[in-house]
């Protein structure tokens, strides 16, 4: 399950990829923070180059399998307007053993932030806004 969505993310939906025999399921949820570098954030907007982003998610999942072994991965990223406390991204990794699931989940979110064609604009409570690169 690899997708870009304008709807609010329901993390449990990603569990559909969990297979009988998987003993460890690791989920990462990215949540919109209410501050960045000491400035109060009033909202965010995300945009994506959707077909390329989805292909990048697929590539990242393949790489995770090559590196860490048999693991199922789901990645869903939300776009559009988000406010503090909302989920911007969910990554789920499910494997027979937990080490594989942890490694694959972390690899996937790190790579997603590093290279998936997705952009984030922060709007600040004190006015102004900024495109933020290199997801911290």
């Amino acid at each position: 399950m690899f997708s870009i969505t304008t709807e609010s993310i329901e993390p449990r939906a990603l569990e559909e990829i969990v297979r009988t025999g998987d003993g460890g399921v690791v989920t990462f949820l990215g949540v919109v923070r209410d501050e960045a570098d000491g400035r109060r954030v009033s909202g965010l907007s995300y945009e994506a180059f959707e077909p390329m982003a989805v292909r990048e998610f697929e590539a990242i999942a393949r790489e995770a399998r090559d590196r860490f072994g048999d693991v199922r991965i789901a990645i869903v990223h939300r776009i559009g307007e988000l406010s503090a406390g909302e989920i911007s991204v969910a990554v789920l990794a499910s494997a027979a053993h937990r080490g594989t699931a942890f490694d694959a989940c972390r690899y996937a979110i790190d790579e997603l932030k590093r290279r998936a064609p997705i952009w984030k604009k922060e709007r600040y409570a004190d006015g102004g806004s900024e495109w933020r690169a290199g997801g911290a």
Partner: protein
Amino acid sequence: MEIRYDSPRYPSKQPPMRIRVLVFARLRELLDGGERSLRLPEGASVEDAWDALVAEFPAIAQERRCTRVARNGRLGSFDDGLNDGDELALLPPVGGG
């Protein structure tokens, strides 16, 4: 919107190529829209497409250094040649997650 660009390097003896340009984030704002069509002479490169956009939107010039390009959904380089009908995406530094 369609920009027609006749490069001095490539006099337009042949019918021009039509390139679909997608821009995102800061570039989308600077270009005042996410999608446009460029007409470029046969043999033009990604660099030529960029120059055509800079000619109309000088503010993007300084973005060149940190812009990556994707041709038909695959990462490429500014040196890549373009073909008629190509989709060219100009990608500012990403920051999802």
